[in-house]
């Protein structure tokens, strides 16, 4: 909502200066977006100094000037003026300027083979005088310090731009703003002068509001103005329209716009001679069409509120008029409309047709239904004054009567809500200035809500009115109440926190990527999940919710590789979506590691990152987050985007259905499809939702501290075993021989090939044996050794290597 202070003062007697007004507006909830002069075409002309004027290489009469325009570099301008000389101060017009004399727009051009950036101006070109023999010569003493500044002072009045919240339609007119300011003590609202307009004759175009279920219009007021001379608006009116940032069109259109912004009362003017017999306000039928004033043809759906005549649709009520009945300079007789349209109807229609106009913006927020006559009178007066003509009696058709909103307000609610007290007297004064009718019934105030405030329906609205006018600075700053109702984080929130920092501490950079992704990449990772398209995506490559974190992570990994980084570790913790309903999402960590370990190391051998690098990262992170390493079981079944032979799943124990993590190499096909160029690429993922809450705090779950001081022994074994036999199985078999005595089993060597039969491998393990009761003698140890060998051989088909 834009307006000038002058305009405001048409409605408000105030001693406040501009800055006080600006502050007050902001303090009462009418946020000032900006307060500046509207831009002018003359703003581009600037004071400049000729540094060096030399003869044009291809034309004796022209000069080539180096001009200082106040920026870092001088610019080159070709100039034909005989008085262009070194050191001259003059006026420079950059490319894009419009020259007042001929209204030509300057562009960069070549003059006799030399490029000229803009021009130096004569007084006649700027319409300052008839002097056209040379360029302007500015006085040294006045302009020497002003090189680079605007030559013309912008004299247009400063415009206030307010951002009006959707609950305040009344402040979409200058009078409403003045009323709010007056309530807040910034002046007195001027009383509207009684109109002494003389009416002649009746409005003899019959108006009917059809009684239909979907009728979007409840009041239609109008008058005829006969014998007008439409013309260009007078300067004062043009200035007002320009200050709104709009283009003046003709006196009649400008007046209806002016009244809309002045009183928040949208109006529409029809060329009465173009209306076929009568005006019918009705609901549209599907397929009806009309050409609107924005020069677009609209095809209507059912139940849109239209103003029509016998021929058809004239316009969309409260949204936009049609070209068929539009006013022109030749228009002689006008039908002026001032109506009330229902906000819901307006909003629905404008959404369906995607039209946004100033009238629509106001009607959908709610126009004062009692402002029909005021609008007609104010506009008619102005039309008569500017365009002449005779005004008919006002004709107002209604199918519904306005009902007052009454609120019984208990002033105690104010203190209860805001924490401070305002005397009843002051409270009543504020409400009255805002236009409320106040009467007292004991402690309760009976309030009649002004018709221009559709937003006010209940007591809390009244509290807001009083506190905003009184000023939020009166609210106390209470000490925060520190009472706690429950612990800050629950188990999964803590887990999130631990795992996030745990993974980062393994050298991964955390990133945050969109929750949406490219369906083409997503499909490589979605497995059996349904694709979740976004109906209105921001772009076609962010068109689905991500089923996995990897599509985005790999997309950005590639970008970083393309930037020339080679060894990259990235992770993200966030949602992966499994369905389109609320809650169909899992919290997942996705991590990628690319490149080499010990690249360019002077002492270690460099190698490509591998599955066991990420296996370590994932297991260590899980342990740090509180999972017992002894419970963890590894499996080799993984989603299809993993390398089928070089990836694994992590389970919290044997019988779990869902893997809580996967790790391994990514499938080579995917690397190829995404065109990722790297020496090595391994990934892991952890699904936080599949980690089981132990429900025990550490203080309850720590087991008794037990240790053995008896001597421990270590024994090494090497088995020849089937190539596909899992080492985890072997370890479990050994442990199960005697889980009291066998303290640990460690695989320390695996190899195939030389001396090992085809299809077999050799696994060497180191077993630590220790009793909690005694020192084991050779005999005991020998027995265990034998048991280990026989168990392994019988359960796994392995053979001990001798």
């Amino acid at each position, binding site marked *: 909502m834009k307006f000038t202070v002058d305009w405001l003062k048409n409605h408000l007697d105030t001693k406040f200066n501009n800055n006080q007004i600006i502050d007050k507006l902001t303090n009462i909830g009418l946020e000032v977006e900006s307060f500046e002069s509207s831009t002018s075409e003359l703003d581009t002309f600037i004071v400049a100094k000729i540094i060096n004027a030399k003869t044009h290489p291809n034309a004796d009469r022209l000069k080539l000037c180096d001009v200082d325009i106040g920026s870092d570099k001088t610019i080159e301008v070709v100039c034909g003026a005989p008085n262009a000389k070194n050191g001259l101060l003059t006026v420079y017009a950059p490319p894009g300027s419009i020259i007042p004399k001929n209204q030509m727009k300057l562009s960069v051009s070549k003059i006799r083979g030399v490029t000229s950036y803009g021009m130096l101006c004569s007084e006649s070109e700027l319409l300052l005088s008839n002097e056209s023999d040379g360029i302007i010569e500015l006085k040294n003493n006045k302009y020497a310090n002003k090189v680079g500044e605007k030559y013309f002072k912008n004299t247009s009045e400063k415009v206030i731009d307010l951002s009006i919240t959707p609950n305040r339609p009344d402040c979409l007119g200058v009078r409403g703003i003045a009323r709010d300011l007056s309530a807040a003590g910034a002046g007195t609202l001027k009383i509207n002068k009684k109109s002494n307009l003389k009416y002649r004759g009746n409005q003899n175009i019959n108006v009917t509001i059809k009684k239909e279920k979907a009728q979007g219009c409840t009041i239609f007021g109008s008058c005829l103005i006969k014998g007008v001379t439409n013309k260009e608006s007078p300067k004062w009116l043009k200035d007002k329209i320009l200050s709104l940032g709009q283009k003046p069109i003709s006196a009649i259109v400008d007046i209806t716009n002016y009244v809309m912004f002045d009183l928040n009362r949208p109006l529409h003017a029809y060329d009465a001679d173009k209306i076929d017999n009568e005006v019918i306000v009705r609901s549209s039928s599907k397929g009806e069409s009309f050409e609107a004033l924005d020069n677009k043809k609209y095809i209507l759906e059912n139940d849109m509120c239209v103003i029509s005549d016998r021929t058809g649709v004239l316009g969309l009520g409260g949204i936009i008029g049609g070209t068929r009945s539009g006013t022109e300079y030749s228009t002689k007789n006008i039908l002026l409309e001032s109506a009330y349209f229902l906000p819901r109807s307006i909003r629905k229609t404008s959404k369906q047709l995607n039209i946004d106009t100033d009238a629509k913006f106001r009607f959908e927020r709610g126009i004062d239904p009692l402002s029909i006559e005021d609008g007609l009178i104010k506009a008619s007066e102005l039309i008569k004054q500017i365009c002449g003509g005779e005004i008919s009696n006002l004709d107002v058709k209604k199918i519904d009567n306005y009902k007052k909103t009454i609120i019984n307000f208990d002033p105690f609610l104010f203190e209860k809500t805001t924490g401070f007290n305002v005397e009843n007297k002051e409270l009543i004064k504020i409400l009255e200035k805002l236009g409320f009718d106040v009467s007292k019934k004991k402690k309760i105030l009976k309030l009649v809500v002004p018709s221009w405030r559709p937003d006010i329906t209940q007591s809390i609205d009244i509290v807001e009115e009083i506190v905003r006018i009184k000023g939020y600075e009166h609210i106390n700053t209470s000490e925060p109440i*520190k009472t*706690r109702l*429950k612990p800050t984080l629950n188990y999964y929130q803590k887990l999130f926190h631990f795992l996030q920092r745990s993974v980062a501490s393994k050298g991964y*950079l955390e990133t945050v990527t969109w*929750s949406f992704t490219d369906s083409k990449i997503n499909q490589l990772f979605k497995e059996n999940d349904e694709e979740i398209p976004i109906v209105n995506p921001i772009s076609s490559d962010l068109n689905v919710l991500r089923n996995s974190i990897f599509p985005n992570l790999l997309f950005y990994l590639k970008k970083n590789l393309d930037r020339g980084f080679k060894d990259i*570790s990235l992770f993200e913790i966030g949602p992966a979506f499994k369905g*389109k309903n609320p809650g*169909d999402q899992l919290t997942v960590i996705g991590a990628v590691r690319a490149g080499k370990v010990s690249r360019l190391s002077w002492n270690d051998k460099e190698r490509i990152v591998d599955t066991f690098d990420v296996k370590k990262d994932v297991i260590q992170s899980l342990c740090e987050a509180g999972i017992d390493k002894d419970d963890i079981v590894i499996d080799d079944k993984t989603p299809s985007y993993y390398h089928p032979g070089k990836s694994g799943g992590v389970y919290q124990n044997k019988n779990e259905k869902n893997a809580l993590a996967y790790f391994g190499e990514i499938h080579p096909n995917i690397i190829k499809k995404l065109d990722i160029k790297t020496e090595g690429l391994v990934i892991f993922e952890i699904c936080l939702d599949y980690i089981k809450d132990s429900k025990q705090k550490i203080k309850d779950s720590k087991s008794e501290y037990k240790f053995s001081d008896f001597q421990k022994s270590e024994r090494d074994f090497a088995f020849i075993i089937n190539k596909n036999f899992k080492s985890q199985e072997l370890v479990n078999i050994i442990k199960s021989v005697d889980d009291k005595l066998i303290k640990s089993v460690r695989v320390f060597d695996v190899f195939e090939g030389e001396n090992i039969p085809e299809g077999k491998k050799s696994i060497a393990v180191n077993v630590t044996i220790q009793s909690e009761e005694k020192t084991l003698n050779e005999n005991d140890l020998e027995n265990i050794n034998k048991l280990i060998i026989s168990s392994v051989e019988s359960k796994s088909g392995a053979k001990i290597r001798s």
Partner: protein
Amino acid sequence: MSDIKKIKDDYIDKLNTENNVDKVNNIKSELFGKNGIISNEFKKLGSISVEERKKLASDLNNVKDELQNKISIKIKEIETKEINLKLEKEKIDVTLPERDIKIGKIHPVSQVIDEISSIFSEIGFSVEEGPDVENEYNNFTALNTPDNHPARDMHDTFYLDNNKELLLRTHTSPVQVRTMLKGKPPFKIIAPGRTYRSDSDQTHAPMFHQVEGLHIDKNINMGHLKGCLNYFIKEFFEVDKIKMRFRPSHFPFTEPSAEVDIGYEIKNGKIVIGEGDKWLEILGCGMVHPNVLKNVKVNPSKYQGYAFGIGIDRLGMLKYGINDLRAFFETDYRWLSHFGFDPLDVPSNYRGLSR
């Protein structure tokens, strides 16, 4: 006696020039071995008179002590020399690079969320969460923003179906609805998380982060709201004083509503929070609208309280001098390394919010 002295002097001389531990040990056995010279001298003691024996024995013992002492000193001396020589040879260039250090980082958004949670935890708030996909009711209708209300235009919404039933939440406020529907008052929660709006330019991203706050009890008024936010802003920006301004505004789900500005100035091209005469809008808040309380089955005549919504990314940008919002989500390795936080930098009250 003279024999013994001579032996002693000879061997002392010998030992003085000796530089090899093995040879010193040879000397040792030469003297004190089974048939060593000194050992033999002791054996002779048995065959001489008592008087002489006393004297000789004493002399002999002195010589023995002196020689043994000399030997052990000599051995120590040689060993020290040898170790020093060995250490000298073993010297390495410790300025050669260490094995690779991989430094991981926490994203600024995560860090700021942890900072915010830490501050609110201090004054008794707990953390709630809600899903990113919401239904229309929780995101709008329950929050007093009915269909066909112009306030809906303030949110450019991503939809997941053509009926506009399912959407990506446009703010964290639906967590208020979920929290209150599943529990009984009082409520005292914050809810940080991802939020989505379908616009995108230099200052807007289609996804961003908000933290919702909600405190409902029997007598919570706007003074508490002001106190809570004043505390939070001061703690968050780690300044002693903060210039803060509550401005009336409008949100359908709070009434009265306010926007909060903080004072700032630009010093040497950097933004300084809490001073100066410029205002920066950082959050929206207000008293929870009675209609919202009714929608979530809380009796508005018994309970009341405040809610607020803060842009997390914006706060992080201000605190840590980050200019471009879009860069938060572009995963540029250089940017993440530059603006990221050490994983051990866990914001806490006793250790300080930030380093």
